[in-house]
């Protein structure tokens, strides 16, 4: 359940008059590997890769590579142009690298339409790409994937191998985000991908290994208008368990009852966690000098049913994706670490934290 605001924003921009899009409703019959790829009947879809990596010397990095697809329905009076350039689908992608030990964060984005192969999702090739940022499924059975991205500052190449099968979040095949039917998404994750590969950057060449996480989500209009933003946590614990937790915030800054999460045990079995089972408390704030938004970069999380208490920290506070010419609203998405206990045992972990909707909140002076 990522960067929903980005997609919602684009959808708002692009869909002038909506045709009847398919909604994420309970009882969906998934079919894999087909459902790892595009669902053009849904307005918005994304494939989200994040991960914590380090080189043999212990130099820590975080990375994010995201492919968004937003469907556009153009009004009928438009003269039909050559189909390949018709902006029926818009493809947005974000790429970010956190050089944690050097304290550097770099991010960039691109926007394309299909054009003559500029961007797209091709299930027959097992591939989604936006220019030379791409993920290719090496094996549809094992879920092995190959990630490649090149930008002005760096080039990254990772082999991703699932250590657990993917999970489908929520209940009955939908991750519900609001009371109305369809305020929901279909949400699939690979919560533990063994990552190894190569990073070429201006700072040098690094052989990297670590843990990655992949989310795939598709929906039409999943958020209600009362939602202001959310805080999303991907947690990969060193006891071989994972959690995905999100906290939806309404416009008064309160947690929405449709906040929820998923717990994945060491064998890969998953369990839904509803909002009553999770508590989130923001700690230290960091204010972005670029956007002015103030983000809670330290959190305390508790899931009493798991006997879980975790403190979230980040060694790199500036992991905000925002620039003046950005297509998307400002959001914070960064590599973080966790420490605390689960099942009464001390535990550490890595993961990613995403926080959206803080720029507006900041403007109103809520903090």
């Amino acid at each position: 359940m990522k960067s929903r605001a980005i997609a919602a924003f684009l959808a708002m921009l692009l869909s002038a008059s909506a045709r009847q899009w398919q909604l994420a409703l309970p009882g969906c019959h998934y079919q894999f590997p087909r459902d790892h790829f595009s669902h053009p009947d849904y307005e918005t879809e994304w494939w989200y890769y994040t991960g914590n990596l380090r080189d043999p010397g212990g130099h820590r990095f975080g990375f994010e590579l995201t492919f968004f697809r937003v469907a556009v329905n153009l009004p009928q009076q438009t003269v039909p142009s050559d189909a390949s350039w018709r902006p029926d689908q818009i493809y947005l992608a974000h790429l970010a690298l956190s050089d944690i030990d050097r304290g550097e964060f770099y991010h960039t984005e691109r926007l394309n339409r299909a054009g003559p192969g500029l961007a797209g999702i091709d299930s027959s090739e097992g591939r989604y790409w936006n220019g030379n940022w791409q993920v290719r499924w090496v094996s549809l059975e094992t879920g092995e994937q190959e990630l490649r991205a090149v930008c002005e500052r760096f080039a990254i190449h990772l082999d991703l191998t699932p250590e657990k099968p993917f999970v489908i979040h929520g209940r009955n095949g939908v991750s519900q985000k609001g009371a109305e039917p369809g305020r929901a998404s279909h949400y699939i994750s690979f919560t533990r991908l063994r990552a190894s590969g190569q990073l070429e950057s201006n700072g040098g060449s690094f052989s990297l290994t670590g843990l990655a996480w992949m989310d795939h989500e598709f929906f039409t209009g999943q958020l209600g208008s009362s939602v202001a933003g959310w805080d999303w946590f991907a947690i990969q614990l060193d006891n071989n368990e994972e959690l995905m937790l999100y906290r939806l915030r309404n416009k008064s800054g309160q947690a929405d009852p449709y906040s929820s999460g998923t717990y994945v045990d060491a064998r890969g079995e998953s369990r839904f966690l509803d909002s009553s089972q999770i508590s989130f408390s923001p700690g230290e704030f960091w204010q972005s000098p670029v956007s002015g938004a103030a983000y809670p970069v330290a959190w305390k999380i508790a899931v009493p049913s798991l006997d879980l208490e975790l403190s979230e920290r980040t060694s790199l506070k500036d992991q905000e994706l925002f620039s003046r010419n950005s297509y998307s609203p400002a959001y914070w998405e960064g590599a973080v670490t966790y420490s605390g206990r689960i099942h009464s045992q001390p535990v550490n972990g890595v993961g990613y934290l995403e926080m959206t909707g803080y720029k507006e909140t900041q403007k109103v002076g809520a903090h």
Partner: protein
Amino acid sequence: MKTLGPLLVNLIVRPMGRERVRTALTLFAVALGVGVVIAIDLAGAAAAGSFHSSLESLAGKSTLVLHQTGGIDQSLLGRLVQLPYAFDFAPRIEDFASINGKGEALPFLGLDLIGHPGQHEFQNDRPDSAARDLAGANPVWVGQRLKLRPGDQVSLLINDSIHRFTVRGILKTRRGEIAEKNAIVADIGLAQQVTGSAGKLDSIDVTIPPDHSVDYWREILAKNVPAGITIDDQGSRTEENRKMLTAFRSNLRVLSYIALLVGAFLIYSTIEVSVVRRRADIGIVRALGATRKMVATAFLAEALVIGLVGSVLGVVIGRVMAQGAVALIGSTVQSLYVSSEPAPIALTGGAILIGIGTGLLVSMLAALAPAIEASQVAPVEAMARGRQEYITITRSGKKVVWAAAMFATAVVLSKLPPLERQPIFAYAAALLLVAGTASAIPATVSFFEGVAKRAVSLLLGVEGSLALHALRASLGRTSVLTSALATAVAMSSSVGIMVGSFRETVWVWMEDQLKADFYLSPAGRPGADRHPTMDPGIGSAIERLPGVAAVDRARSYTISYAGLPATLMGAEISKAGSSRNTRFMPGQDRNRILGQLGRGDYAIISEPFANKHGLGVGSEIVLPLRGGKQTFKVLGVYYDYSTERGIVLLDWHTLLKYLPDAAPSSLVVFLKSGADPEAVHRGIDGVIAGRPVMVLTSSKLRREGIAVFDRTFRITYALEAVAVTVAVLGIAGALLALVIDRRREFALVRFLGGAQVQIRRIILCEAGLLGLLANGIGLGLGTLLSLLLVFVINKQSFGWTIQFHWPVALLLAVLTTVFVATLLAGIYPAGVATRMNPIEVIHEE
């Protein structure tokens, strides 16, 4: 008198102050001369120098650009963007559009407004709103100069059809980026559709990663694109256009120096008059201790003042004239070379310095001889009386020898080849011809007096005889004046003859060439770099009309050859049934060449192309086309005056083989003998069915062609007019000086019973005789110069064969204008002379 200060005041400043009108005339003449130089410099820079090839506008910060004649298959873009390098590839469609099919051709660009909105500064605050803005009825973004507002509907003619668009926004103009002001931008998909180039891109702008050299990345690109694609530096088209315009601009610049050259004669004459007039004063100051050097310096100072004030004035005048010149030059550049909009005129410090510097230099050089002459006046002359009667001693015999030597050298120089594509030696030869003629003028005037004496006294009576004698008596001055006027006449008539010959050549060529009955091409103003196309169906439908014998198709592309723009053309020139009248260079067999043209990779090339690139029969031309570089063997060189860019002409089917796009740029229709042209014309109109396609008969086409030609050469006429004006101003000033110097003579004539009207007649006779003399000499010199222009300078600069031809009407007009103007120039001095009170004048003495 040991210091220069008082000397300057007495010898220079006071006399100049006393003769305000004459001083003002000279100043104005210099100002005009400098003004023209500056105007042409500024206008040339604006029209050609700082222009961006309009299609290269909005190229962002990209470094390289991929091109392919006939367009790039867009699937290449899909492959390129996935290469594992941090390139940025921005596709473009490049075409032209005109609003409602009228007026100038505006650059019409298709850009990827979703993938690269940030590269182009649209007025929209957020680049992503471009994506939203793609919704709606054919949205376009337009340059500021088009004066359209968001929401306006606009109809654009693109190729052979009109499309309606909605203005969605105004293009922001970056500093110095001129072409954007009149550009029209659409999203690439829409642009492909309306330009009929689905699946194709005209170019791909490439921004390279900063961590390696351009050459490094060029090599990587080269490995990843097909062989037919060229990888150019961004801006290379602009550079090529600029190079192409070099000859045009330098010739224009040379023409602009004519007025200044005429001005130089006038400065010479002014200083010379001052020296003669102040001979006694010079003697006195020399007697009072002034050195020779001081005297020379004083007169050079006079020239300096005239040069400086005149030049400063000239800068102002030049800035004003540039405005008019830029319109004239701009239309020439548009119709002959490249579709571009003139930049704003930029009066830079450099331009001002060059203008003033040139003015000063010319003034000082012109004043050198009289100043030296002044320094040689002996102190004893202070005592000598009769200064009015002083006559410059002219060694006309020696000067004639000089003249002969200069003419001989000119002939030799005219045989030399160009230097770096510039006819430098020919220009030198022209200068020598002018100087030689000037040297020969005293002898000519004497000769003229001898010959004309009887005729003049018969025709003009005693006043005429007096005038003729006076001319002879003041030979030193007269000859300089005659030189100035004759130079102006010569320059004007030589340019007139050249242009007239060219015009006649083009006309004859068109008559010869345009033998078909109808010519079809998409509507809109023609341009050398624009080749709009028509629906291929039109040609075949016309072929089926009753009465039509054949339809020849032709298609043109703008290409780049050896760093210069050129036109690649495919034509059904050798088709049976058609009878195009291509004329080849002497010794080339037309029928054999045309018979062979379609049988393989052969080409024929136009004369300017051959001359520009040093090619001839048997040469090989390598062009990057589909499937890689293709070699064509040149079978012949043909006469063509349609474009200075030069043409490589292939057979229609040869071109189609490499560029498979059957949409023609033009159609030529031949009728069966006995067919009714009216009926066929109606049939053609039916086929066109309201599409904006022009159907011209050959006579109409010829008229259109000659109209373009005339528009092109308007600037040269304007330059000639200024040169003549400068000369006439000079004549007025000089006659005034003559009148003042001879007031004693006129007073005597009055005392002896001469009427005022007779005095006036004497002066007017002098003016008229001077005009006549200058016309005669000018015409002779002009003819010589025109030979240089037609056969050497034009050939070396532009590569055209021009048949010599006397444009009689034009020449008569020039000569009459000059003669009348000279007479008019005599009116004011004549008035001054008649208003003199003879008693006062005699008392003065």
